[in-house]
């Protein structure tokens, strides 16, 4: 457990000043994600509850949007958080816990969606590519749901539909093209242009 009770020895003082170590009585609701995860690693149920309160809406929202069925979305949310409790060290501190959990939740949802599909599973991202995506964490940590919703609403409908189908339904661009009847090249351009516009809109909202 990272917390200590009183009069810490010298080595802990700088970490406490940085907010990485807290006194026991400090409210868990105000703790940094990484500290909460460290406490979950140590078996702290209250820290786990605080993470659920903070990120339950995110995981449940992804599940509802992807799986549609409310009961299935609840089961998925429960499964994601219980996996977090069982193996909290799966998260490597230092990035954005929220972005990591969103990826976990989405992958779990798409596993369910794809289990009935014949599409060949796309392999997991290679570690070196993931490691270079710290931009994800920066955007995620500074963004609010309303801002992302507003940015999405500004996209042309065909671009928004294409990227939402790819993200929430796990469709490949070929599948998006089949569904929309648009040429493959058009769909590829729509997805890239939509992501580019979204990135530009979000970047304006992220404090630098």
């Amino acid at each position, binding site marked *: 457990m990272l917390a200590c009770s009183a009069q810490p020895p010298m080595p802990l003082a700088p970490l406490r000043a940085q907010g990485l170590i807290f006194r026991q009585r400090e409210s868990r609701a105000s703790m940094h994600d990484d500290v909460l995860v460290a406490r979950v690693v140590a078996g702290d149920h209250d820290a786990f509850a605080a993470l659920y309160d903070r990120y339950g809406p995110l995981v449940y929202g992804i599940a509802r949007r992807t799986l549609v069925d409310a009961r299935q979305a609840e089961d998925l949310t429960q499964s994601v958080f219980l996996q977090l409790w069982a193996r909290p060290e799966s998260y490597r501190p230092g990035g954005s816990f929220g972005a990591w959990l969103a990826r976990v939740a989405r992958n779990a949802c798409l596993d369910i969606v794809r289990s009935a599909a014949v599409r060949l599973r796309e392999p997991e991202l290679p570690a070196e590519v993931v490691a270079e995506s710290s931009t994800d964490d920066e955007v995620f940590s500074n963004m609010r749901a309303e801002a992302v919703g507003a940015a999405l609403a500004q996209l042309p409908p065909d671009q928004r539909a294409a990227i939402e189908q790819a993200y929430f339904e796990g469709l490949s661009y070929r599948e998006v093209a089949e569904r929309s009847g648009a040429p493959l090249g058009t769909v590829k351009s729509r997805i890239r242009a939509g992501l580019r516009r979204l*990135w530009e809109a*979000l970047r304006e909202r992220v404090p630098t």
Partner: protein
Amino acid sequence: MMRAHDDTMLELAALRAIGALDADEAATIDRHTAECAECRAEFARASAASTAIALSSAMPPPAALRERVLAGARNIRRLRPWHAQAGWRAAAVAAAVLIGVGSWVATHRQVGQTWAAHCTASASSDCGELVAVGGVLRLDARGLSAPPAGKVYQAWVIPPKQQPVPEPTFSVSASGEGSVDIAAAPHKGDIIAVTVEPAGGSKAPTTKPVLVATIE
């Protein structure tokens, strides 16, 4: 063989970020982005935008789900990672004591604020010194082999009866020598340990210590 860079590659990088490629195309762009900075940047932007989309879907879960999740956690018995177990410190202390007994003379040859450091893999091995200098503890290690690809050495301060406190990472030269400054005052009973960790370091040790020094 890496495919040459063009606009098609940029398009594939963006599609890869949102997971909209089939397996063969994903493999093609993965090989390309490993070598192409422009496509890595495109991937990073598209990935950030994709991940942010998740936020737009957030909605409050049913109130009853909270109790289901918390009750589920209370019913799960899990094995705590080795570093969170009381035995980790005991193991580090045991290693330090065992080594210390075997090299009492070496441990006490210190002049002033210097302590011997030892490799845990070999009880007789002298693996450097810990020196209090300029307000920090400087660990000058030697005899360490190069860590595996993507891994680094990381120092830890382990105060008595407390969990390891993360300190900076460091690398070693081809001859196995490396130094790290630990922003801590010498505190009797503290153990300074070194473990192999993923690049960037860890907040808690993920491997057993390869080097220890005890401040006495």
